[in-house]
Every structure is written in C-alpha cells, then in structure tokens.
C-alpha cells in the first residue's frame, strides 16, 4: 500500500462516510449561513465610506483619497510623489486601464525591481468589511507588484466594492482560479519583536488607495 492509499484507508476506518455530494454541499452551505448569522451588523448603505473607514483605521493603516474618475489618477500620483519626495520614475502594473492613461510629466515606464520605491497598481475589487484590496495574478497583474515596492499606490473602482468576505467568495466562484489570489489589507507589518507593530517588513511600508467612480 503506498502512502496515499494508507492515509485514505486510515481515514475511512475512522470515519465511515455516507451521503451524496449534494447532501454534503447542502451541509456546507448551512455551515456558512450559520456563521453569517453571528456577524456584527454593518452599515452597507455606502460601501466606499465603509471601505475607507476600515482601510484607514489605525490597525490597518492605509491612506485613502477619492477622485471622480480613473482619468484623475495621474494627478493623484503626482501629488503623492511630491508629498513623499519620490522620484517621478515608477513602475506601473501592466493593466491596460493604467497604461493608457495620460501621465503628463510623470515617467511611468520604470521596471519593477527588488528595491523599487513606488509601484502603481489597480485592484480587481475591494472588500468593504475588512478594507481589503483583491488582486488575481495574471498577465495584467503580476504578483510581485504588490510586494516589492516600498510605496504601493492602488486604484480601486468604487463599483467593484463587495460588502463582506463571503461576497468575495461568491464573486470568485465564477472566475477562473488564478495562480495567486491576494487579499491585501494594509501595508506590510510585523509584531515579531515584543508584539510591537512595525510597518514595512518585507512588503510595502506604505499603502495608498485612490478610490475612483
């Protein structure tokens, strides 16, 4: 008996399973619903406001601003670059929505490097409950854009906001499973020395989110 067979034999000895897959799926659904009934109430009337409050909370620590349209992103980046004394060269996630913007005097062509100061990206969607940005890896969203730069500036479409984590799970069911799904909640940090929070462990030290309509 190989390892796989031995493990399954041991499981089947301990657990005589019965039930068709439809019954098991119904049981799984009931478990999810029971958990949902325990959740604290959320004000879902304005998801962008809820997202802003959660992502901007001290324990998450992102900074946020709102603009009227994606076309205003270059101006927001220019303000951020000036406020943080960054070079006007930065890496841009290879998403066509970002590449086709008019960047003016900014120079968005820099390659992503292990020590990039700034990368500008765009999230697939956001989860309001936790203030999380969601990225699915792919040709237009390489994973390392979320982890290498010291400053990560992310555009987020207000229309893409989902109320809760469960809503993301339902939304993702209809999409192809990418190599990497990342729910990013605030800038990287660590509490490994005496439980004290320090930002910018190995990922970005600053996360700035620009919500557009």
């Amino acid at each position, binding site marked *: 008996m190989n390892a796989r067979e031995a493990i399954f034999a041991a499981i089947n000895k301990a657990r005589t399973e019965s039930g068709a897959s439809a019954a098991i799926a119904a049981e799984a659904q009931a478990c999810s619903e029971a958990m949902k009934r325990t959740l604290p109430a959320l004000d879902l009337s304005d998801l962008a406001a809820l997202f802003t409050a959660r992502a901007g909370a001290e324990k998450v620590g992102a900074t946020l601003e709102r603009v009227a349209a994606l076309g205003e992103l270059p101006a927001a980046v220019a303000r951020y670059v000036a406020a943080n004394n960054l070079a006007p060269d930065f890496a841009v996630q290879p998403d066509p929505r970002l590449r086709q913007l008019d960047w003016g005097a900014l120079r968005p062509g820099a390659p992503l490097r292990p020590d990039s100061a700034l990368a500008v990206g765009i999230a697939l969607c956001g989860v309001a409950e936790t203030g999380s940005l969601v990225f699915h890896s792919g040709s237009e969203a390489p994973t390392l854009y979320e982890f290498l730069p010291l400053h990560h500036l992310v555009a987020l479409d207000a229309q893409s906001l989902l109320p809760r984590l469960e809503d993301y799970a339902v939304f993702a069911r209809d999409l192809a499973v990418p190599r*990497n799904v990342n729910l990013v909640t605030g800038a990287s940090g660590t*509490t490994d*020395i005496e439980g004290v929070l320090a930002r910018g462990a190995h990922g970005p030290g600053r996360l700035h989110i620009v919500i557009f309509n």
Partner: protein
Amino acid sequence: MSAPAGTFHDRVEKALHDPQLKIALERTTGNARRKRAAAVEAWPEFSAARAAAAAIKDHALAHMAYYLEMFERNALASGAQVHWARDPDEARRIVVEICKAAGAKTVTRSKSMLGEEIGLPHALAEAGLRRVETDLAEHIIQLAGETPSHIIWPAAHRTREDVAKLFDQYHREKPPAHDVVSMVGSARKELRADFFAAEVGISGANFLVAETGAICTITNEGNAELTTTPPRVHIVTAGIEKIVASTEHALQLTRLLVRSATGADLTQYTTFHSGPKRAADRDGPEQFHIVLVDHERTKMLSELPEMLRCLRCGACLNHCVVYRAIGGHAYGGAYPGPMGSVLTPAFDGLQQTRDLPSACTLNGQCKQVCPVDIPLPTMLRHWRSRSWRAGYEPKIAGAAISIWAFVAARPALYQLAQTFALPAMRLFAKAGWISSLPLASGWTAHRDFPKPPRQTFLTMIRKGNRS
C-alpha cells in the same frame, strides 16, 4: 539549531530562573491578550461564531476523504504535483528530493509550524542546502541557533535588546538604531537578495481549499509571497487536517483565526496559491508541489477528533498561566502551551511526554479563548488518565494520592487535619501571603500561597458566622 535539552523538569527550572524570559513573554503575550480582547468585544456574537467555526471544521473533518480527494483532483488540474506522506520521515525525504531534483543550493522558507513538526530545518541542513528563514521571528531564532518558542511569535522569548545584539553581530550592515522599526528595516535589507537567489521556496498552509485545489496562507510581512513567487519551485507542506470545503469557509475561519491571534480583522496578506505559473503569467514558480502529511492525524480522528479543528492561532498559549511562566522551549516539542500539551503526546508518545498534560492548572482559560471551542482541559485530563492506567506515573505519586483519598473520604478526619493545618500555615504568612512553606518549597519558590483564614468554612457555618 539546538532543540531544548534535558527533562521537562530541568527545562522548567531553567525557564523559571530566567528573569529576561519573563519580561519577553509578558510583553508579547500581554500585547496579544489586550488586542484579542478588543477584537472580541467588537463582535457581540463571538461565542456563537466560535460554535459556527467549530461546525465548519467538523464538517470538513466528517467528510475528510471526500474533501481531500476533491482537493487533490482540483490541485492536479491546476498543474500542482501532490505528494502524500505517512510520517515526518517520508515528508522530509519528499521535500529534500524535490530540492535536489531542482539543483537547489539556497532554499527560502516562510514560517510553517508543520515544517518544525516534521523536522524540516534539520533535514535541509543535512542535505547540504542553505536554508534562509524569511519570517522576521524565524530569522531572529535562526541567527540565535534556536527553535521557535511560540506558534505565532517564534521569538517571543527574545527581548528587543536580545534582537539588537544578534543583528549587530550577524547583519552585513548593522541596524542604524535599536528601536523596533530600525531593526525591522535592517532585516528587510539583509534578506532582500536571498528572495531572488533561492531556487526553491517552502511554505506551509493555513487551509487546503477542496473546492479550488488552492492552499491558503495567512501572513503579515510579505515574506511568504516573496518566498513563493520568485523561485523556480514552490513546495507546500501541510497537515491533512487543514482541509476545508470552500474559499468561503476558509475566509470565515480566517475572521476568527486572525482576531484570536493578533486582534486584527485580517492580517495584511490572505493569499490563495494554486498551481504553478500560468502560460501568460509574468511571475510565479514553474513547479508547485504540495506535500500532504498524516503524522498521527488519522489516529487522532478517533482518539482526539476535536483537536484536528485547531487553527494554530496561539490564543491558548497567550492566556495560559503555565506558558506565560515557562515559555515555549520548556515544553520540548514543536507546539507549546495547551494545544502543544495535547499534540506532543500524540506525536512523540505519552510515556516520554506525560509531564506535559500534568503541567496545567485546568483553569479552563484555553478553552474559553479557543476560536473553534476545542475542549483542551478535557483532552489534557484524557492524557493524564491514560498515563495513569498505562502505569507511567511514579509509584510515590500513587501512594500520596491514596493517603489523600483515604483522608478526603472521611469528613471527620479531613476536618481534623484542616484544624491543625490552618494555624500552622498562618505562622508562615506575611502580609496576607505565604511565600515559603516547609515541605512545599518546590511550590512556593515561584509562586505565593494566600494566607488561609483562621477557621475552616465548615467551622464558620457551624458557628453561624455567615458574614
């Protein structure tokens, strides 16, 4: 890397005489307790949520074969290679073989308690591979040549002053200052090049998602993705009990896991890894291996089923009066604290580890804070009674308990003994506490005993003194 040496009693003795350890443990676990309490307060139905979380894990464990098969099918379809290991030896061999086949010289690792459980650090060293721990705490203890002492904060036994000394000694560029932020920055600089030099990156998994075949990691530093994305090969090692039905269940459990561990709503990075780099992807590994490890878990399905719910949040450690006094190394296994005292006898045999379930006051704090409501005190009692029945307990303990039982079963004799004992004990009390007592110095050396009242409760009742 040196595992804790000596008997349990030796290690406890050493820990109790280490004032630095007490400071480090109180700083880390105190912070964790405060933050968890605040997070739980913001979730009024938390107690019902714990029951719902337990039900989610129990559902997956009730259909374990069904969901593991589904996980394997979906993982294979994503291009992953799935390996099965009955025991740590088999798991280590699989990992080392994959590393050798990849021609690896440097292997990066992001924190995984299962990796510690199966002895992976040692196996990689034996195979001549350069192991780079990328989690900050694991980096600290790798420099110190130690094993983890906490499942969430492996360097919980180290003060910031200790870390400063280690970084000054070992970092190519010394930290510019010794505050926490400067030292974190120094580790970032030190490890940057290794992320890209490694041929293989190894991670653990918080969940195995049957519905998609993805594995989920819950991290906060960003080191996990930098460990798993740049190298050519990503290896995941995970216990089979990490199986859950769906992405939805994984996220629902994460809500409780993170609040119980650090008090946050979510950690910075909740990541689902599925298979190798896709054709159009610009980054990611060419090979993605998942090593699924049994190591006594199928036995625990019958013997200690609730223990398989454990999410490894560490709340039971942070709230345990014993852990907070002796730290993780004293326990001797990969997992310390209450959950470790249940797991280690299952992994290493009860005869060698029977002291662990006894090092517990049964105050029930661990069960109260457990996000999946594991009856830890009941399980510790289960090991105690097994040890007793197997004849592992010393004869002298049996004799002492027999004497106590003889007296306790005879109320008149018991009260008489108390009548003599109370005034005698009061002679040793100062300011309401007894800090040293003849014949009980082993007990009073590290804790005080409250000064007993003048009379027993029963005497007071009999005299009608009910105030």
